[in-house]
């Protein structure tokens, strides 16, 4: 039997003859113990000088007794973490079609420049006169973000998307308070299809949340928003393109309705990567929008973080941007670190984080922007959208689309209608993708779609890679419909681990390693 690359494969054959190994290892797939099981308290992988005798100034605070931390030598450490890395799927491993999470190519150039000593080895509190290049990076990044969004101001310091949401909503709250409406405008409208961070953020900032219903076509209608508007509404938090992968067609009308009602329009910019260089949030009436630098401008996700979530702000919200920020006047820039230093007309609402935000991410994002240029960023958005629609077109006859009336933007959304009666769930389907060498798509999100499957290929996939992915998903879909159930329900068969018991982890939480009881004691 030949596979799609024309090479011999022996899928299925001979599998039953596989021996269980004595060690539990499977060649390169090795069971890796925890450092606590292989390390020792006296082992170390660093050489540190012993200081000459001196008089301690710790007083009575000196630590007594063991810390309880094992150490490993350098070669043992290297092997431990290399082996762990081999149990991970990354974008460099293969297609990572996580909708809404945006896993695109991470250029190593960005890593290289972020490690230049003038960026990585500078302290946030060393004299400002010694870091003009760092301020230049922040100014240049700000210029790019403002130009791409068509917004007049940006707050750089938020450390992640959700932190940026908090920053934007705080600016809105401050603006409302400045108008003397702090006591009355207490409600934030959030569509049912929104990321969970949106309602959580609104609540964190002291607002109450009212849900905007989802239309059958996956969009938010201006009439539904208008029906909820009143003097108690502070803002709407709307994602655009939305979590169903659709550009909200009535976004301009929704923004106008909010402004007419004296309220603000917060746009969740998680999916900004679909429209960079194609449309500007500022032209649509947005008052505040966070930008996930790690998604849109490709800084590494590193197992879930760190992120960076700068927020662009409209003219009305700009005065309330938090410290620290760089103020430019007469061609000279200065770092404003405290409310009291703020230039006239500015009334910062406070501070989001101890220092200046995620400089390491600013450099990476700027390197991405310089590399792509305005022409490349526009092309990247177009290719991301093209790739998503190509996948949609390749699967639409086998899998069901909940919202066929709108083009998909950068991600294609399917539901589980097509799996009805097969006994295969969305999760089973996702796990079977693992056996085929793919990271599953985002599953069960957005919540408004039953058994949702959200596929975002991004612009960094080639046509050949998409063709292979589509062919694989087609094979799986046909197998699912053909009652080849065991391929799905027991999947994955070929991953480093088989399906993990998440219920047990939650019912009996084990959140750290505990030294096992001695055998004798345990037997008693």
């Amino acid at each position, binding site marked *: 039997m030949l596979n799609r690359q024309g090479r011999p494969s022996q899928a299925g054959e001979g599998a039953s003859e596989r021996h269980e190994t004595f060690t539990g290892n499977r060649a390169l797939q090795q069971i*890796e113990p925890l450092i*606590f099981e292989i390390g020792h308290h006296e082992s170390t*992988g660093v050489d540190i000088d*012993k200081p000459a005798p*001196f008089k301690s100034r710790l007083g009575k*605070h000196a630590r007594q007794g063991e*810390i309880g*931390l094992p150490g490993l030598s350098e070669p043992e450490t290297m092997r*431990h*973490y290399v082996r762990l*890395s081999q*149990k*991970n*799927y*990354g974008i460099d491993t293969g297609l990572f079609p996580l909708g809404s999470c945006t896993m695109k190519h*991470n*250029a190593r150039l960005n890593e290289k420049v972020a490690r*230049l000593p003038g*960026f*990585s080895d500078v*302290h*946030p*509190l060393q*004299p400002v006169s*010694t870091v003009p290049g760092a301020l230049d*990076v922040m100014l240049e990044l700000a210029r790019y973000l403002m130009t791409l969004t068509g917004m007049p101001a940006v707050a750089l310091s938020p450390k992640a998307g959700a*932190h940026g949401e*908090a920053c934007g909503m705080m600016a809105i709250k401050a603006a409302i308070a400045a108008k003397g409406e702090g006591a009355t405008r207490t409600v934030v409208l959030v569509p049912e299809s929104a990321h969970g*961070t949106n*309602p959580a*953020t609104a609540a964190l900032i002291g607002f*109450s949340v009212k849900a905007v219903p989802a239309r059958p076509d996956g969009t938010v209608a201006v009439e539904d928003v208008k029906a909820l508007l009143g003097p108690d509404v502070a803002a709407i938090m709307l994602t655009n393109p939305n979590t169903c992968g659709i*550009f909200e*067609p009535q976004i301009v009308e929704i923004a106008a309705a909010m402004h007419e009602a004296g309220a603000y329009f917060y746009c969740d910019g998680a999916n900004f990567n679909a429209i960079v260089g194609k449309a500007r949030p500022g032209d649509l009436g947005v008052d505040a929008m966070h930008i996930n630098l790690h998604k849109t401008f490709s800084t590494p996700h590193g*197992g879930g973080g760190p*992120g960076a979530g700068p927020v662009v702000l409209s003219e009305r919200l700009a005065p309330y941007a938090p410290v620290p920020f760089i103020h430019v006047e007469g061609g000279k820039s200065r770092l404003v670190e405290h409310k009291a230093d703020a230039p006239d007309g500015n009334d910062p*609402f406070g*501070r989001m984080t101890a220092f*200046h935000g*995620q*400089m*390491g*991410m600013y450099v990476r994002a700027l390197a991405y922007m310089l590399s*792509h240029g305005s*022409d490349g960023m526009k092309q990247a958005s177009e290719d991301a959208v*093209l*790739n998503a629609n190509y996948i*949609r077109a390749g699967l639409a006859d086998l899998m069901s689309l909940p919202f066929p009336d*709108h*083009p998909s933007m950068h991600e294609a959304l399917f539901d589980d209608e097509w799996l009805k009666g097969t006994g295969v769930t969305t999760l089973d389907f996702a796990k079977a993708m693992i056996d085929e060498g793919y*990271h599953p798509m985002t599953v069960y999100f957005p919540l408004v779609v039953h058994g949702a499957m959200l596929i975002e290929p991004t612009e960094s996939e080639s046509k050949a890679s998409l063709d292979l992915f589509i062919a694989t998903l087609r094979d799986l879909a046909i197998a699912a419909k053909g009652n080849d159930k065991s391929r799905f329900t027991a999947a*994955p068969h070929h991953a*480093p681990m*088989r399906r993990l018991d*998440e219920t047990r*982890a*939650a019912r009996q*939480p084990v*959140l*750290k390693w505990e030294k096992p009881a001695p055998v004798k004691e345990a037997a008693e």
Partner: protein
Amino acid sequence: MRYLPLTETDREDMLARIGVPDVDALFSDVPAGKLLKEPLDLPRAKGELEVERILGKLSAKNTAAGAVPFFVGAGAYKHHVPATVDHLIQRSEFLTSYTPYQPEIAQGTLQYLFEFQTQVAALTGMEVANASMYDGSTGTAEAVLMAHRVTRRRKAVLSGGLHPHYTQVVETLSEMANDEVVALKPDVRATEDILAAIDDSVSCVVVQSPDVFGNLRDLKPIADKAHAHGALLIAVFTEVVSLGAVTPPGAQDADIVVGEGQSIGNALNFGGPYVGLFAAKSKYVRQMPGRLCGETVDADGRRGFVLTLSTREQHIRRDKATSNICTNSGLCVLAFTIHMTLLGQAGLSRLAELNHANAVKLADALAGVKGVEVVNETFFNEFTLKLSKPAAEVVEAMAAKGILAGVPASRLKPGAGLDDLLIVANTEVNTDEDRAAFVAALAEVL
């Protein structure tokens, strides 16, 4: 364009397969007139060489910590990071992976999160730790909100020894959440009477040790009084290496411990990304913010790890979640964990001892300079000098001599009467020559 694999022929074929005339047809939901016709006014694409050149020039305008005698701390510290750490975190499968939503192919990430949680719990002397926060300051603000949930009270008392930027972050979030914060005045000699501020209306007291001025604080009496009044003690540190040398907050009955983990494995980065450490007593685990990794088994009964207790989180609880956070500092956690594994208890103790020895040496030498007084009785690797001249001026004059001398306390909190105070950090990277240069230059400047 080197990052975009599609060719013009590919694009044409794909549009034909989709059945649209051009790519703009896929943007048909964008309201009329809002689709941009021309590329925006930004430079066009550049090759790798050119980008390196541009950023190299910007980098060269900054004075790197490693290039000069360097004594700046106050919340971020220059330490030596073994080469192994940066090599390993750049492994593709770590660097380019995402949140471990599919645990069968994310055991690498999950296992290091589990190792990290165990390390942080051991270091702080606490029962549970989460998989990290954005940084120490945001972690502190989250800890205050958590104390509000636990105690059902909404007033936090912040010690005057808490890093003023941390105080501001807590104040900002609390003010927005309509909660109350009582921030005590900065007290350089650590004599403030935080005990007097504790009563039955207080949800928590937040105390930093070593504090922002470097003083080590006795937490146990504060914990005792807080507990007697139904309040929690939140213990904060900004220098995690100190835990190699001092009694951990867990041994002093702290309820929540928050710290900055940048010192282990992570570079200075002009302020970020960093890694917030967050630990608590296990009875509060369901009120903790952030991500947690837990142990479980797979279908074959083999040990594995998954993200767990997500019923606290925003994607399930929406506006009732313990926080709005949906990420952690994954890669910074990995750097921390690898560096801590290399150190082990033996290495961390030695590193802490060397930091303390170096700081004592410098403090002793500076005490002999006219116009300088070391204000601390106890300290770890950072202490505060009272100078005969405004510290901000002294720091500028020292910078002109090529020495980065520390942080003027007035930069952290202007207008608080801290003008003559200079916060000085001394870690293992400083040599005897660095210290001699510092002492000589300071004597000249004063």
